[in-house]
Structure formats: structure tokens, C-alpha cells
């Protein structure tokens, strides 16, 4: 059988992996490059329009990506996005990837998380947890409403347990813990300070309230 050298074939079909908007103002798409291609071109059209546009910025978000700045990001339309891989033998186009910016918002994690053990007036210990919203997210204006989710897990445990969803309150959480007697939460519960004082892992998942 005649063996056609690998590079003499047109490239395989590239695949668009993911598109994400960190703050509902811009978005980025990434693709998995076709292995045997010399270059890739991202093309997109907007619903109801024939016109096809090319990716406005291949650089900002790194290799195999396309960054859509504010000017190129519309909140009112569905994007039909494809990626074309090309080599000297021809090209191949990915399946279309449809994007509605409202539904690809995935905020960055919160920052500056601090945890402090304090004593109340009645000498009861409690933890004060503070954090700041992700820098990129303009939460002060209300355009992006974040919901924080406090999740706790004992050191040796596997499962993260959602303790509380805080809706955009100024990120401070008082967790009143009375060991071994009655656990009562002002805002949320921290089950960590059990009798053997196991360390408590605090993890945050942030969701945009679309």
C-alpha cells in the first residue's frame, strides 16, 4: 500500500475547547490546535448577519486563543464561531461553537482571603473571614452581581460541604463556634473547630448571578 507521508495530508479538524467571560464585558475563546497545521484562523458571525469577521486579537490571551475586547463583545447576540486549521495541503474547519456572552460568565476567584480567630465579649471564640471580590469584576456598580459560596472540608475529608451562599454582602463572615456544646451560626457555620482542633480548609466558589 502506498504510504502518503503524514505532512502531505490536510490538517485534522481543530476543536474549540471553551469560551469564557470573566466580567461580562469581554470574552476569550480557546481551541485545541490541529496537530499537523501551520496556522489557525478564528472566524465568527453574529446571529442574523451574513457578514463573517476574523478574530480581533490573537495575542492578549496567549496561544491558540482569541480575545474579544469590549468593542467586539455584544450582549445581544449569539456568536457562531469556527476555527480553521491550514497547511500546504489544505485546511479543515472546526464544528461551529455558539456563544451567548451572558451564559459564559465565570468570574475570577476572590482575593485577599483572611481568617482570624477572635473572642466575643462573652469570651466565646469565633472566626472572622474576609475576602475581596476578584479585581476584574466591577461589583461596586452592580453590573456584575456575585454570589460567594463558603465551602468547608475537614483536613482528612474529601467532600467539600457548601456552608453558606452570601449574596454580595460586603465580604465579611462571622462564624461563631462553641466547641463541643452548641454550634450556632450568626451567618454561617464552621464545623472545623471540633474537639481535636483539626485544621479547616476554606474554599471559595464564585458564581455570577446571571
Amino acid at each position, binding site marked *: 500500500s502506498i504510504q502518503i507521508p503524514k505532512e502531505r495530508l490536510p490538517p485534522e479538524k481543530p476543536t474549540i475547547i471553551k469560551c469564557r467571560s470573566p466580567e461580562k464585558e469581554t470574552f476569550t475563546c480557546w481551541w485545541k490546535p490541529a496537530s499537523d497545521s501551520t496556522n489557525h484562523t478564528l472566524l465568527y458571525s453574529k446571529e*442574523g448577519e451574513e457578514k463573517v469577521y476574523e478574530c480581533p486579537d490573537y495575542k492578549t490571551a496567549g496561544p491558540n486563543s482569541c480575545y474579544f475586547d469590549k468593542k467586539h463583545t455584544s450582549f445581544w447576540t449569539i456568536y*457562531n464561531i469556527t476555527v480553521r486549521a491550514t497547511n500546504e495541503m489544505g485546511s479543515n474547519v472546526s464544528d461551529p461553537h455558539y456563544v*451567548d456572552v451572558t451564559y459564559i460568565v465565570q468570574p475570577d476567584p476572590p482575593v485577599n482571603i483572611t481568617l482570624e480567630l477572635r473572642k466575643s465579649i462573652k469570651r466565646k471564640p469565633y472566626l472572622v473571614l474576609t475576602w475581596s471580590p476578584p479585581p476584574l469584576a466591577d461589583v461596586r*456598580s452592580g453590573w456584575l452581581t456575585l454570589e460567594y459560596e463558603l465551602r468547608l472540608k475537614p483536613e482528612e475529608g474529601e467532600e467539600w460541604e457548601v456552608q453558606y451562599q452570601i449574596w454580595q454582602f460586603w465580604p465579611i463572615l462571622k462564624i461563631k463556634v462553641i466547641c463541643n456544646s452548641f454550634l450556632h451560626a450568626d451567618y454561617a457555620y464552621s464545623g472545623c473547630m471540633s474537639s481535636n482542633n483539626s485544621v479547616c480548609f476554606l474554599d471559595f466558589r464564585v458564581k455570577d448571578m446571571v
Partner: protein
Amino acid sequence: LPICPNGSVNCQLSLEELFDRAVKLSHYIHFLSSEMFNEFDERYAQGRGFIAKAVNSCHTASLTTPEDKEQAQQIHHEDLLNLILGVLRSWNDPLIHLASEVQRIKEAPETILWKAVEIEEQNKRLLEGMEKIVGRVHSGEVGNDIYTPWDGLPSLQLADEDSRLFAFYNLLHCLRRDSHKIDNYLKVLKCRLIHDNNC
């Protein structure tokens, strides 16, 4: 919610989805406009009697818009949509200048500054959305005829502080009023066109 399941040809946002986003945006713009007006009023307008002078001085006053619930419910939805577009367009120019001129107000608090910029940006975004909605609802071409020019820039740059502050007061008063009109009309239209008046 799979977007465009199996790549259906006319894959587009539903009118309901467009109205949902428009109402969220109009609500947000009015909220910011009210906050900005209240902050300015508290800081610069106390005891100056500006409200008496602000009577009948909005540049959009010449647009005949519904003034109560019955009128808002009786007007044809295409006419109301065109009115909303007209009011939004009429604010493009003043918002551009407001965002730059407000920086020159003495000790203008940061909260007023970024709101002016944010409102200008979101107003453009809402205008884009409204043109999309009108394009969907209107059978014909999107009417560009409703528009009222704004000639208030010189008054924002007056040397006399009292006159200049009144010019800002009046602009923010009119912005709060018109952004509320847009928000209210959009909510009425959404309930009428999407929820058959049963929101």
C-alpha cells in the same frame, strides 16, 4: 440550556431573552442615574432652589411620551419602542460630555465620576439592544427619525459656579427622569408582549 441545539439554522436569542436583558439594563441605568442625582443634589444643590428652575427644561421635553399608566398601555407597542429609541439616542451626546465635564466639578467625588462613565457605556449598550428588539418587532426599517438635539455643553462650562452647577443639576434631573421613563416603558412592554399583561 444548550445554545443552538444541533446547530439549528436560525439560532438566535428569543425576544423574551432580549427583553429580559433590556429590562435588567434599563433598571440598572436608572438605579445609577438616581444615585448620581441624589449624590449631586446632596452635595451641591442644597438650599439653592434648583428644582424650581429645572421645571420644563429637559432637552427631551418636546417628545410626547405617555404620562400615566393608561397612556402607556394604550399606545401601540411599535410607537412606544420608537419613543424609547428616540429618548436613548437623544442621550448619547449629552452623556459623552457629562462623563468628561463632570471631572471638572470642584471635588467631584469618585462615586459621581465613575457613574457618569458607566451610564454612558451602558446607555450605548442598551441602545444596541433596543435596535435589535425593534428590528425583531418592526416589520419595516428601524425608524431613525425620533431624536432631540442637545445644546447644553456651553452651560456645563460656564464660569459662574452657580449657573454651572445648575446646568449639571438640570442634566442629572432630566437623566434620572428619562432613564425612569425608559425603564418603566420597557417593563410595561415586556409584560404586554412577552407575558400577555400577566407578569
